[in-house]
């Protein structure tokens, strides 16, 4: 058993590791890579996986659930409210119109109206997984097309629930035999009296909101304080899995439940950390899901009626595309945005598989139809990356040239702050306050959860997380920020963070705090240009006040301090250049000899001469000579 599990895991991982990078390299996108991997290892190819493909698909659908959680995390409730028109308007019209058009055509081809309506509704759904993954990969999520796609997909996900409720009514008493077996769809709720059911459903939604809002932040705080990252990941997963279980129990879509939880948690300080912890699971499970879709394409069936299947695929996609394009037009999407939107959503989605098996059990559709349609849906999903690529390469260049209408303002604008401050203790918070006083917003990362909690209650925009992780930096907007201030107190952590930034975000300007001269040398070796010794300015201010108390004029003492400051920075640079590694060994002696060197440099420094323009000595001397 274990043997087969490892072997299976190896096959899936190997196929993905080989095909996905190749597909990416060829510009096909990762989704197509996974689908190809599935086809290759599936029954049609190397036959590594057979019938269990569909089981894996059910398991991998959990990837979609996690994905909606992550999407929810990025959508604050206020932004969701902004999107309400697009979700209800575009989504509603899309599902309604596509269902009717496809159903109408099916009736024309002589299919019973009940079956036709079921097929229409199934066909109106698109693939959340494929579309969002592809749009994300192309960086199109923030565009008008991305936002519209998201709104429509969200509505579709919600629409599945009434569809499941509606389908039993479509069960015809005529010719289709009811297939027994499969997994039963009786849920806990079904066993309750009818009047109680809506309350249970509403109650669980309310429970998710209440738990997300009030129970999870303290829980995460406790977990974060343990300092064990894997516990944080485990808690995040537990949250998602728990919601999925709850939702399935009451008969709601798990994806919808986790999405809701994500939205509730979008305002919390743990959002970035949650997102980066969950992200790898999302990616892998979605990948598995795409592989399963690829593997589930029944090529024997396809080969038996290639013409019929192909025309069904193209016909349905064309129907969807036309409806979507008209919809985009009426919601005033510009032409090129509209083509991304309508080509992108033209496939039939993964919910179709669920609805097919459901309608098979309910006796709505016959086995021949669902088998054939399953292949059609899988192929349409596989076509999607190709269609999007085609649109990108052929349609968009033409549309973009004559584009003159202004692009629709995106409803959802990610807060891209120009500054990231890593470490928000006394050092970092002063910087943050100063920037805020000048109306510059900063994204703040801090790994002290107590600190984060307190600052957030004070109304600061602070997130919990270890800044040296590149995924967290990515989410904090490091790719778009201009400046990062490293104000962390831990020297080793700072160097780690610098390495990460240099590797992943080379464009970012780095301003870094340093503890002392020796730390500053290390930072210089790491290639830092902007280094701020945390004690230098303060010590000099003390020196100035000491001089003033001794009777020096304040202005002169101040200028002298500034001169000393510049001189000291120069000495630091010079000494860092002549330092060698052996000296590290004798740290104590080195400190001694270095202080000597510094004092020597002070004594002979040409750069310490100051303000000679205000010195009248030479003038007086010259005048005296003239008098003589």
């Amino acid at each position, binding site marked *: 058993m274990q043997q087969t599990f490892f072997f299976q895991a190896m096959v899936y991982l190997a196929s993905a590791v080989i095909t996905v990078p190749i597909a990416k390299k060829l510009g096909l996108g990762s989704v197509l890579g996974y689908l190809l991997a599935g086809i290759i290892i599936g029954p049609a190819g190397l036959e590594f996986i057979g019938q269990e493909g569909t089981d894996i698909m059910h398991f991998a659908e959990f990837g979609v659930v996690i994905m909606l959680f992550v999407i929810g995390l990025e959508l604050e409730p206020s932004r969701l409210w902004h999107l309400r028109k697009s979700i209800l308007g575009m989504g509603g019209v899309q599902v309604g119109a596509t269902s009717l058009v496809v159903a109408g055509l099916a009736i024309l081809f002589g299919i019973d109206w009940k079956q036709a309506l079921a097929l229409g509704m199934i066909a109106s759904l698109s693939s959340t997984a494929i579309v969002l993954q592809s749009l994300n990969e192309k960086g199109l999520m923030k565009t008008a097309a991305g936002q519209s796609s998201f709104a429509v997909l969200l509505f579709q996900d919600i629409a599945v629930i009434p569809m499941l409720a509606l389908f039993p009514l479509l069960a015809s008493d005529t010719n289709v035999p009811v297939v027994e077996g499969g997994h039963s769809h009786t849920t806990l709720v079904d066993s309750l009296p009818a009047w109680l059911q809506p309350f249970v459903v509403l109650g669980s939604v309310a429970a998710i909101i209440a738990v997300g809002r009030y129970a999870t932040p303290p829980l995460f705080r406790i977990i974060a304080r343990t300092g064990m990252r894997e516990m944080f990941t485990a808690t995040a997963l537990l949250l998602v899995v728990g919601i999925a279980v709850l939702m399935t129990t009451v008969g709601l879509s798990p994806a919808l439940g986790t999405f809701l939880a994500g939205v509730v948690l979008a305002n919390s300080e743990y959002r970035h950390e949650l997102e980066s912890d969950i992200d790898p699971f999302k990616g892998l499970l979605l990948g598995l899901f795409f592989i399963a879709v690829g593997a589930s394409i029944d090529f024997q069936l396809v080969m038996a009626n290639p013409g019929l299947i192909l025309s069904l695929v193209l016909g349905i996609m064309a129907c969807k595309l036309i409806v979507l394009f008209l919809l985009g037009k009426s919601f005033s999407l510009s032409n090129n945005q509209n083509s991304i939107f309508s080509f992108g959503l033209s496939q039939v989605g993964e919910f179709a598989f669920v609805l097919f098996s459901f309608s098979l059990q309910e006796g709505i559709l016959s086995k021949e139809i669902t088998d054939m349609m399953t292949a059609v849906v899988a192929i349409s999903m596989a076509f999607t990356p190709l269609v999007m690529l085609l649109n990108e390469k052929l349609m968009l260049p033409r549309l973009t040239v004559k584009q003159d209408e202004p692009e629709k303002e995106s409803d959802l604008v990610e807060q891209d702050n120009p500054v990231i401050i890593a470490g928000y203790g006394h050092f970092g918070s002063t910087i943050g306050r100063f920037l805020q006083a000048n109306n510059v917003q900063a994204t703040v990362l801090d790994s002290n959860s107590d600190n984060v909690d307190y600052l957030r209650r004070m109304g600061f925009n602070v997130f919990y997380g270890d800044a040296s992780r590149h995924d967290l930096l990515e989410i904090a907007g490091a790719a778009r920020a201009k400046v990062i201030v490293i104000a962390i107190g831990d020297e080793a952590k700072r160097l780690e963070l610098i390495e990460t930034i240099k590797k992943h975000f080379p464009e970012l300007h780095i301003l870094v705090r340093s503890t002392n001269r020796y730390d500053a040398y290390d930072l210089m070796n790491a290639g830092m240009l902007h280094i701020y010794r945390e004690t230098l300015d303060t010590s000099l201010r003390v020196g100035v006040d000491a001089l003033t108390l001794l009777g020096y004029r304040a202005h002169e003492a101040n*200028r002298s301090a500034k001169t000393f400051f510049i001189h000291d920075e120069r000495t630091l640079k010079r000494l860092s250049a002549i330092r060698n590694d052996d000296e590290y060994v004798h740290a104590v002696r080195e400190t001694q000899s270095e202080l000597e060197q510094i004092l020597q440099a002070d004594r002979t420094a040409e750069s310490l001469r100051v*303000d*000679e*323009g205000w010195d009248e000595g*030479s003038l007086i001397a010259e005048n005296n000579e003239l008098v003589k």
Partner: protein
Amino acid sequence: MARILIQFAHPALSKSQVHRVLIDYCRNQKNVTVNDLYESYPDMFIDVDREQKLVLQNDIILFQFPLYWYSSPAIIKQWFDLVLEHNWAYGSRGNALAGKKMGCIISCGGGPDTYLPTGRNHYPVDQFLLPFEQTARLCKMQYLPPFVVYGTFHITKEVIRQSGEQYQTILSALANDRLNALNYQEATYFNELLPDLQTVGQV
């Protein structure tokens, strides 16, 4: 060709209308170096060595600034105090600047009529610039007549643009040594020389 150094001083450039445009007109000029003093020395701590080197590398030093309280913004005065050292810029052994040209490019809020004996400011602008003129003389430099943009309290975009173009003409004339063909020492303001400069340019 002569090399020109523009010593530019505006303590709040983001609030300026005139100088932002003027400075744009000289940014990409050949042989012109713009030294933005408030940007280089935000705490008025002038690097004397650097400034002296810059001055030595150029033949013509222009001070560009808005007239505040009948004089320059503080950093220009600080610059004179600290950079023009005895026995470097002046004094028996101070010949570093000898033979160079120096001038002022200024803007003032009031119109030309306010700088008349009958006007609010009572004296003409060139008299307020006497310290510059005499400093040039003490450092053995030739003092150029000042270029003045008047009336910035009520100035239009069009006039600012014209002033920018005039500034450009002046800079190119200075860079190409075309000024010596004119009797520039007779002029009180550079503005008077502009029509002649254009004809000289045609030749």
